[in-house]
């Protein structure tokens, strides 16, 4: 997870994508104390100038007929318009995405060309499951810190309305061979092979780990059980997230959202459509989505599959100041962690939080706001339970106590 320090309120909405995309943040506020200076000697200060995003819609709703780069294009052009920064200033573009549209496999490049950026500006796309767009941001930080670039746009895009569904391996082989088959006999042979029903069964992209074949929701449900997170606790936490999001929308705090015009849809899209505060009673009626019938994760306490895109502008501090731009945040440090893909797949925050704090020389008391983006309410609660536990700290973090 990327870690943003000296950045007081949860205003930067960088979409963290995973196959099951999410848009709920858990925000914990601590009492503010005096700030330490986190500037590092001999390392350039990297600043966040601005961030924008499209509204996040449930997949299969209003965005469904678009292509993914359409959404990314909107954020790229919108970012320049909002900041007034000239396209010549942008040295590089980097995007994160999880499930790739094969036609636009380097979607960063396709989107920035559509957005009217200079065709001499290089761009690349990164992927690292749920944290792909954070990987894009930290790639940008690295480029600036290393003196390679002065201004980089980093973003993320995911489009679950149209995931690539493939022909079966057998069918693909027949199709590839058919171009080489010259004689009628060979062609008939291929045709005969294509008669089998198995050949016609398509391959859906599984929201599953290759190594364990387990889907994320399944893993999350098991994680909740492992940490004793009840259904009720999950529902309550999900309700809280929905309420905060709804309040923020109501109060007009989500200034990063750009209105989106979908062709043939009468109204402009201006709001996330998955924020739906409900009642515990309503939520308790839902059946578990993954582990049936005794699982605890339901559609109500998990985030929805999402379409959306985001972009942010990062610069070296000197560059931003020379252009007269006011940095919104200083990006100080980050850390990535990995664990057992089977039983600790979704336990990253529990490992990353203490690690990044230690790295930056900070303690819990120094932080005003933590923001975690995860797909399941129960997952956040499991991570918080782990962080609350001395046992866990001793066993897995190599610390004497939490």
């Amino acid at each position, binding site marked *: 997870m990327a870690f943003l320090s000296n950045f007081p309120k949860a205003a930067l909405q960088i979409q963290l994508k995973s196959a099951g995309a999410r848009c709920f943040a858990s925000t914990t506020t601590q009492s503010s104390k005096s700030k330490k200076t986190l500037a590092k000697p001999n390392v350039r200060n990297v600043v966040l100038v601005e961030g924008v995003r499209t509204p996040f819609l449930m997949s299969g709703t209003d965005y469904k007929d678009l292509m993914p780069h359409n959404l990314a294009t909107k954020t790229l052009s919108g970012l320049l318009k909002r900041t007034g920064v000239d396209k010549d200033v942008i040295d590089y573009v980097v995007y994160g995405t999880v499930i790739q549209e094969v036609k636009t496999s380097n979607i960063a490049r396709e989107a920035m060309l559509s957005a009217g950026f200079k065709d001499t500006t290089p761009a690349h796309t990164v992927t690292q499951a749920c944290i792909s767009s954070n990987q894009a941001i930290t790639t940008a930080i690295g480029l600036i810190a290393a003196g390679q670039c002065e201004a980089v746009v980093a973003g993320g895009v995911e489009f679950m309305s149209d995931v690539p569904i493939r022909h079966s391996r057998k069918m693909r082989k027949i199709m590839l061979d058919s171009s080489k088959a010259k004689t009628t006999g060979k062609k008939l042979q291929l045709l005969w092979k294509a008669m089998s029903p198995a050949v016609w069964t398509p391959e859906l992209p599984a929201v599953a780990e290759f190594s364990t074949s387990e889907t994320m929701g*399944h893993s999350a449900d*098991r994680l909740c059980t*492992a940490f*004793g997170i009840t259904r009720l606790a999950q529902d309550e936490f999900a309700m809280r997230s929905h309420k905060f999001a709804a309040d923020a929308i109501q109060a007009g705090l989500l200034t990063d959202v750009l209105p989106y015009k979908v062709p043939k849809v009468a109204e402009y899209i201006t709001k996330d459509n998955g924020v739906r505060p409900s009642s515990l009673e309503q939520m308790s009626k839902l059946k578990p989505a993954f582990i049936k019938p005794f699982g605890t994760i339901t559609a109500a306490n998990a985030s929805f599959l999402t379409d959306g895109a985001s972009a942010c502008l990062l610069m070296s501090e000197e560059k931003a100041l020379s252009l007269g731009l006011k940095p919104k945040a200083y990006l100080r440090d980050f850390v990535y962690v990995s664990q057992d893909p089977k039983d600790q797949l979704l336990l990253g925050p529990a490992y990353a939080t203490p690690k990044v704090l230690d790295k930056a020389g900070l303690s819990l008391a120094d932080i005003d706001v933590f923001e975690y983006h995860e797909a399941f309410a129960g997952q956040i609660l499991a991570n918080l*339970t*782990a962080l609350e536990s001395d046992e*866990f700290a001793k066993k897995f973090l190599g610390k004497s106590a939490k």
Partner: protein
Amino acid sequence: MAGRFVGVFRQISTVNRSLARVSGDHGLKNFFSTTARMDFGKYLTYTVKDGIAVAKFDEKDAKVNLLVKFDEKDAKVNTLNRGTMAEFQEVYKEITNNPNVKGMVVISGKADCFIAGADINMISDCKNVQEATALSRNGQDMFNNLENMKIPVVAAINGSCLGGGLETALACHYRIAVNSKKTSMGVPEVMLGLLPGAGGTQRLLKLLPFQTAMPMMLTGKAYNAKSGKKIGLVDHVVEPIGVGIKSANENTMEELEREAILTAKGLADGTIKKPVRSKKGLNKYIDMFASSRLGNIFWEKGVKDAVMKQTKGKYPAPLRIIEVAKTGAQQGPRAGYEAEAKAFGELAMTPESKALVGLFNGQTALKKNKFGKPEREVKTLGMLGAGLMGAGIAQVSIDKGIDVILKDVTTQGLSRGEDQIIKGLDTKVQRKKITSFEKDQVLTHLEPTINYEHFSKCDIIVEAVFEDLKLKHKVVREVEQKIPEHCIFASNTSALPITSIAEASIRPDKFIGMHYFSPVDKMQLLEIITTDKTSQDTAASAVSVGLKQGKVVIVVKDGPGFYTTRILAPTLSEAVRALQEGVSPSKLDSLTRGFGWPVGVATLADEVGIDVAAHVAEDLGKAFGERFGGGNINVLRDMVTAGFLGRKSGKGVYLYQSKSKKRPENTEAKAILDRYKLDPKPGNTDEDVQYRLASRFINEAVMCLQEGILANPMEGDIGAVFGLGFPPFLGGPFRYIDLHGAKQLVDRMKKYHDWYGVAFEPCQLLLDHAKDPSKKFHTR
């Protein structure tokens, strides 16, 4: 694992006493609250949670739960059982009469074992058919009581649920099982020459289709949770939980218990319905037919013929299983249970069952490393030679996480070997033993090479180069330059004395023999050979490597042919003599298979390789002289010269065509045999041919014990059965003598001695046993 099975609870009296204290409804309103909990006795704990009684098997001080464990000193098994039964019934009455108990969960306190069965010794201790039959009846009654409980009973299964364990689960009304590799549900009694005697034969056939239930009982096939759900053995699968604040095992067991309680509650209040398992489609009609008199064709043609074909009628247990299952299906449960108890009692007293139980006990005993823990763990194995053997040894090593440096002389040889390994692992993927991802991880442990570059990392070297002493000496000298001080050198040879190979070594204390059997990934036996100079720690290391590879390991002293090759050689020699006397190869095969060998001896010679057989016959002939004579050694020599090396060369005693399964006899080999034709002795019967082979085999085994090549009879039995295919129902050469008497064998040998001379001279130890029938090789 063939295992442990049927029986009855022992500590029931304590259950009853404690139950009296389970009363009142305090705390029932609290979800999951414990209203009463008491630890009583050694075997069971009992709790009432949220109106559901949770009976937890958790035998203290034991790794596995046994359904029943009787005190060996306890002679009055029968009466004790009746007393236990009576008390057990009271427990059920108590639970049924307690209005606060709405359901019951049967679960284990151990994460990797539900109930592994009953203590085998309990059956071995039965003195007669009546005692064993009574054991079965008691088990049946107990499980009938369980099944007849008015409240829903849920079995919550994680880990091994075998034999009596599965019978317990079958008597419950609903089964939930954890989807883990450790969960294994089956009735392996047939492998011990028995049948599931606590209602298993009846309940399995009632629950599952004929076509699933019969193979399960007849082969001992076990199912995991998911496949069990598919066939209808399991009603609900519980996903294993990972580590949290608590360990993965604790979390999984808690979740299993939670879901079991919810299930029991659901069944009690009607929110969960017991799935009505209507047998569908073809199965429905097969089952209908099988349970009518008209269906005899299924039992006779479908099942019995298949069993007879495989067992030649040598194993009574599968035949009795068919009989008992058929009785239940056609004449109803009362007759079925009666037949089951009777058959169980009779089977328990058969020599076949005693032989198989002996093998099982031996196998279990050999899982321990008698040399103790080696000073350092073997992490890297250097494998010299990527042939059939070398690649096989590499495969079983990487499979268990040992790093293997596989060296061959040529890249072609190496590539062939690696292909063999990949193919072997792919088969495991196809059978869903591992995932293709796990296969990739396993293969990462393999480092194929044609030089000695990384051999400095090796903890053990296993050489499987060509069987030539000079070549082996050269390899030893070469490799010892490249390996670290602590590294063990093991030679995989089937006949060359380890002491001779070790002469080239500068550290004979680190030198040892590891004799694998081909195909290595299928043959269970590993014969380890120590010389006078081999150190204890070297032996400990080699045994621990073998155990890690999943082998059944016996350790023998060095000598010509060690143990296994030495006892096989005179048998093969006798086989050649029989061929010279005009017995055709297929006739010889059918005679030996008829005796109970899984592979006919003529086929065996082709599988081993005629060249190898010739080599061994020559070497051992030199070492042991005339006693190892029999067939003319020139028969084998001429066959080798003619290129008839056995299956590997396409021609041996038989002809092997690439695509056809048919193996016609090799007429050219027949021509060679004709050149060395002998007249059969007058009066020589088919049975004589069988016993000529077997008696030489057995006599040589006993001689190995007499000379101290073998440490004990048990390892001799295991080696003969698992390495050479000695008929398992005879239990090995030593068990055979114990069960069938030495005298009859010695008498036969006297007759053959008159015919053929010294080859049939019984050894002293065998004569001693013939003279005094009270002498036994095995105490149990």
